[in-house]
């Protein structure tokens, strides 16, 4: 999300949890002063429906503190020290700035909270009270931490914000708790999310070349793939929404949409100059190209990734990137010579024989079809039960022969009391 704020200044830094620092020293005039840039940032937050708290100060640490204790405050230039004076002592906890306390080298002699609690103990309540304490005394009491805090409360903490180069893909997804058939509602929901992606695009100084959508239907695992391709690269949400509306009109929504994944394929506003040392084509690019080709041919591709799940269709997935698989095993804890075993009760499932062709969507069998099958055993070969805490699922699996002699993998859904074909051996 920080990318969206790149439009205020290219010098931007993001820090967990949820802090964005923007160096506006060189862009303030461009936006008409600090008041307008603050307003612009607030408007941008609101348009993106972000709950933000903003403040402007000479130093990132002061700005962070003000955003907590005096939101929307603009500290006059060179007056950070004065600005901090009336704040409660707990404000010291928020003087981190670009680097969090946990990553700050100086915070090793003492814990900031311990310092605050000590000041409280001796009756000092505001930052102004402790500003009077001489620097040497801070050092004496709390070493480097004290020295650093002294600098921060006296506005002498210089932190530089570097330019930010975004790398993340412009992907988003939307899940509906109640599946959607109404196109207008679908469009309305997508519009808001799309605006966020476009804001990110704007921050990057890029345009949308293509918009790809992957819609998952509620039933039978039906999916739709849509691609919106404007005549010229654009950031105009209206244009993109119009094109999207046309595309959506072409699909059948009687099987309601439950989830949408969408991605913007960006193109630079201007030609980027390649780094001399950067290889022109990487292996990853080749794989992505290949995947792109396969996708154009409507072939879903990826690496088969095993998963520790109970139900067969959930125990693997296609992954775009290759990842090592570490199966769940019994946990053996050793304490000297003694040991403790925490069992993984269903670890055997990953080696259970599964059909060579597993249907992506199990096919419900009619009673007529069922009568034509010859079940190889009266008892189920396997009983799988799962997710009783959400939607209970229970299946009895059987092997059955079709009239053509095919060996089928059938299950009886114990909740629905229906039979399904799940695969062929």
């Amino acid at each position, binding site marked *: 999300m920080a990318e969206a704020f790149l439009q205020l200044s290219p010098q931007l830094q993001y820090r967990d949890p949820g802090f964005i620092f923007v160096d506006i020293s060189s862009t303030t005039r461009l936006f008409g002063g600090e008041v307008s840039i603050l307003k612009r940032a607030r408007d941008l937050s609101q348009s993106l429906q972000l709950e933000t708290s903003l403040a402007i100060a000479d130093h990132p640490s002061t700005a962070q503190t003000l955003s907590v204790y005096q939101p929307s405050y603009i500290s006059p230039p060179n007056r950070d020290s004065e600005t901090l004076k009336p704040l409660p002592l707990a404000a010291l906890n928020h003087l981190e700035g670009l680097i969090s306390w946990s990553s700050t080298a100086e915070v090793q002699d003492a814990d900031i909270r311990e310092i605050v609690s*000590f000041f409280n*103990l*001796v*009756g*000092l309540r505001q930052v102004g*009270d402790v500003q*009077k*304490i*001489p620097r*040497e*005394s801070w050092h*004496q*009491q709390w070493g480097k931490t004290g020295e650093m805090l002294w600098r921060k409360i006296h506005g002498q903490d210089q932190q530089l914000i570097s330019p930010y180069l975004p790398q993340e893909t412009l992907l988003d997804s939307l899940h509906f708790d109640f599946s959607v058939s109404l196109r207008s509602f679908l469009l309305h929901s997508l519009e808001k999310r799309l605006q966020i992606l476009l804001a990110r695009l704007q921050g990057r100084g890029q345009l949308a070349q293509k918009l790809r959508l992957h819609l998952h239907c509620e039933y039978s695992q039906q999916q739709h793939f849509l691609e919106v391709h404007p005549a010229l690269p654009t950031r105009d949400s209206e244009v993109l929404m119009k094109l999207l509306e046309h595309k959506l009109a072409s699909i059948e929504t009687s099987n309601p949409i439950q989830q949408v994944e969408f991605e913007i394929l960006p193109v630079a506003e201007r030609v980027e100059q390649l780094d001399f040392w950067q290889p022109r084509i990487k292996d990853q690019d080749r794989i992505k190209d290949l995947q792109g080709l396969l996708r154009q041919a409507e072939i879903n591709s990826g690496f088969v990734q095993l*998963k*520790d*799940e*109970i139900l067969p269709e959930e125990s693997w997935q296609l992954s775009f990137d290759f990842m090592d698989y570490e199966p*769940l095993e*019994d*946990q*053996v*804890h050793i*304490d000297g*010579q*003694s*040991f*403790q*075993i*925490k*069992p*993984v*009760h*269903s*670890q*055997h*499932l*990953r*080696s*259970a*024989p599964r059909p060579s062709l597993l249907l992506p969507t199990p096919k419900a069998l009619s009673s007529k079809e069922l009568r034509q099958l010859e079940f190889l055993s009266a*008892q*189920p*070969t*396997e*009983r*799988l*039960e*799962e997710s*009783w*805490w*959400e939607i209970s699922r*229970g299946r*009895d699996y059987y092997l059955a022969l079709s009239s053509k002699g095919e060996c089928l993998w059938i299950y009886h859904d114990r909740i629905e009391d229906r039979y399904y074909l799940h695969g062929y051996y």
Partner: protein
Amino acid sequence: MDIIKGSVLDYPETPYVELLGRSYFSFLQGASSPEEMVLQAQELGYRGLALCDLNGLYGVVRAHRQAHHNSSFTSPSDFASSAQAKSFQLIVGSELKLKDGGSVALLPMNREGYTRLCQLITQVQRPSQKGFSLFHLELLAQHSDDLIALALPPWNMDELKFLHQQFHDRLYLALWRDLSWQSRQFEHQAFELERHLGLQLVATQRPFMHEAQRKPLFDVLTCSLHRVSLAEAKTRLLHNSERHLKPLRQLKQLWQDRPDLLERTLEIAQRICFSLDELKYQYPKAAVPPGFNSSSYLRDLVRRGTLWRFPQGPTAAVQSLIDKEMALIEELQYEDYFITLWDICQFARKQSILFQGRGSAANSVVCYVLGLTAVNPEQIDLLFERFISRERGEPPDIDIDFESDRREEVLQYVYKKYGADHAAMVCTVICFRTKMALREVALALGIDLKSVGKIVQSMGKEGLSALVQMNESNLQLSLSNWGITQTQFQLLIDLTRQMYGFPRHLGIHTGGFVITQRPLSECVPVEKSSMVDRYVVQWNKDDLESLKMMKIDLLGLGMLSALNKSFALLKEKRNCSLSLATIPPDDSKTYKMIQQAQTVGVFQIESRAQMSLLPRLLPKCFYDLVVEVAIVRPGPIQGGMVHPYIRRRHGLEPVHYAHPDLKPILSKTYGVPIFQEQIMQIASTVCGFTPGEADELRRLMSSSWKDASLMQGLRQRLINGMLQHGIQMEFAEQVYKTIVGFSSYGFPESHAASFALLTYASSYLKAHHPDVFVCALLNSQPMGFYSPRVLIAEAQRSGVPFLPLDVQHSDYDYALEGPAVRVGFRAIYGLNKKFIQQLIANRQRHGPFSSLENLVERIHWPKSALMHLASSGALACFGLSPRAALWKIRSMNLERESFFYTQSPVYEQGPDLLPQESEWESMHREYRAQGYSLSSHPIQILRPHFQSTKGSARHSLQGHNSLSIKKLRSGQPVTLIGLLASYQKPPTAKGFVFLTLEDEFGLFNVVLNPQIHLRFRQTLNANPLLKISGCIESHSSGLTHLKAKEVSPLLP
């Protein structure tokens, strides 16, 4: 159930014994209690069940008790099931895990096998941490005789060969069919092994629960074990709910290709000829002087004790009691037990450790003359059968309280005397209580910790009922506040209820010891406890009682410490020799104080309920105290005994008896049953119960009362007995209801009398030496009902001056300095005792400290400890305010290797910048440092602020406090402010809540009805300083309390 019973009848030829039962004593790896497993197996028509919990025999006694439950009160309708229970075989066993994932279950074939199993488990558990095991197959080389081994897959050929060499035809491979490919693979492998190596196979269900409905709970337990949520648990969970006890019809169908494997379960069971009933407890032979045997030595001790207790010689009645008891003790061969206890008490006496026996032992004259108990048989009627009964065939149960501070010395003496192989402590099974269970279930359901905290806070002290009873709109509001769905909430409630009472781990019983003649591990597995060098047996006190094993309870009682410390202080500071035996009886000043309910700090009668009863009961003699101690119990309260007793005692209603035979039993309590013994006597006298049956009734009243069939049987016995005695049906029902009303809990008279002795002693000390008493009480904390803050405020109000902490004068304990009490260092929170002892030793050796720097240099404390000291105000002697002292210590260089150690900092501008401490800040600091302030009370500081506020509350606040409300008439509206001192919601009070609040003038009581409590529950839970509006309710006895209508926090 009828259907299941029907199926048994349809398949009478299918004999089956489940050989691998598992209960929740496999700690998070089993989801049913031993009782549920047994009951289910019996109801399904199994011939037996082996309980094979992991690495222990924790649940076998409970399963045994359930399997062979036999009560005098079993109703005829249950005859069939009890007959079935008689033929049911409960097999003892344990499953021992191997490091590679396989495991071996061992079933003892006879007593010798059982001994080997206990020794083996002890060997693998005793050196290991909780939950860990040291088991490896080689250990079986020494312990395999007389044991049957069931090898569980996955099988390793080397291991199988080893097991085969050790167990020969006593080795079986266990197979199960749980509708998984894995069980098919194991089966295939097993059939191969059977074919090629001739190994024997046997069928099992490998049940982790008694019924399939427990699968969700089992999954939650698995999540707890792995510390993951259900969504994260994946294949850690069981893939289906097949691992439960199934009907025989299903089993037969499941194994129709190999019915022999089902039949083999019975063959194995038939090879086993061992029951826990065979365990014969042998008490260790007591060391007796030459020329004596146990019997003659005990007689000699009793003779000498009789002369000591009755210097003028015992009365004929007492002598006859002694003779009767001795005859029974000798007949039951309990002499060694009594000698052992006498020996332990002798040790305590020699070490000047105060002790006193209590419980049913106080019914025995022999215990009295041996000095184990202190209740004179001439003071109350003793019911010896309550202590030892021939019919009951159970060992006597003697509880002895020692000074809590010094109990460890007694425990060490027992360990030293008998050795760790022959003495171990009884375990306590720590079970999941509501909040703990709710946390585990919530975490499994993926509810985040913050929300769990909110839910727990909403529960308050009422537990789940607070959540369940929420109305729809409140519930919806709460659900959105907690961020959980209705489904999650329902699951949370259901699973928490199921998990409640499940064992979590073993703890040490507060003082129960088992001592045996033969090594203890021959009888029960012993394992390490969380305390260093402490070992516990795998059974709790009920288990031991079931198997008729003797235990001795050496308990700690804070009041005994306080009394002993009082006596020592009196001797040292007031030159007054006093002891429990020499406290003047029937002292009027003491009884006057008790009648006025000025009993804060007094043993047993200091609770709000007790204090409110005292002015109504107006105790005048020792026996009144015995009644007072016994009457404020759930039993008499629920049975509605309190008000009739008081009315009859004051002659406000006539005393009448349902039957003339009841008169001798109930006359001393005005026809109202108050003591357990009276209930037993009623059952013997008018219901035809034998003394043994009467005792069983007592045990039923406290434990198995909820068993519906037993209740029905008991009712029939009681009513029929009374009808036969000519009591009319109407009266019989009334007596039955009285007994039922008494069921929850009631004191035996002997026990109440033991406690009343301490009540009187502590009251006497408070009345005559309040400074000494409060000093001793504070030095025995934590104990009792009230915090040091309340005790000190109470003492200050009764004129005892207190001197503040001072590094130049204070000792570790509170001490008497002239007429005042000097606060001791023990009052400071979080200060290590060793540091304090070092400071005091330094001061004694080298004299007073000349300055702060001198103190720091001499005692070498870490900075944090010095700051605790400064914060408490103990450094005022150096002319430093607490804040200045804190600043100075914070600035000091206290790195020992530094040349600048303790040198004052170069820059000392800090202290001048520190603001002056206000009265509120000073009080706040003292509360943080030690939990109270000697100089001011928070309400004292806040009161002027509230008196100046506008609004309706102003008028009622002006001038009204804990003292002034006593002069107000009933019904007058008033608003009071106070600091919460106690909060009680007794289960017997039908939802009413009782608060005690404290202001600068004293304590006042507040009553909240259930609706008001529900409304202001959150405020009460979150705020100690409260403003309560309501109206006064005063009683003719002088009792006044505030009936609350509105509660609000005093501070925003």
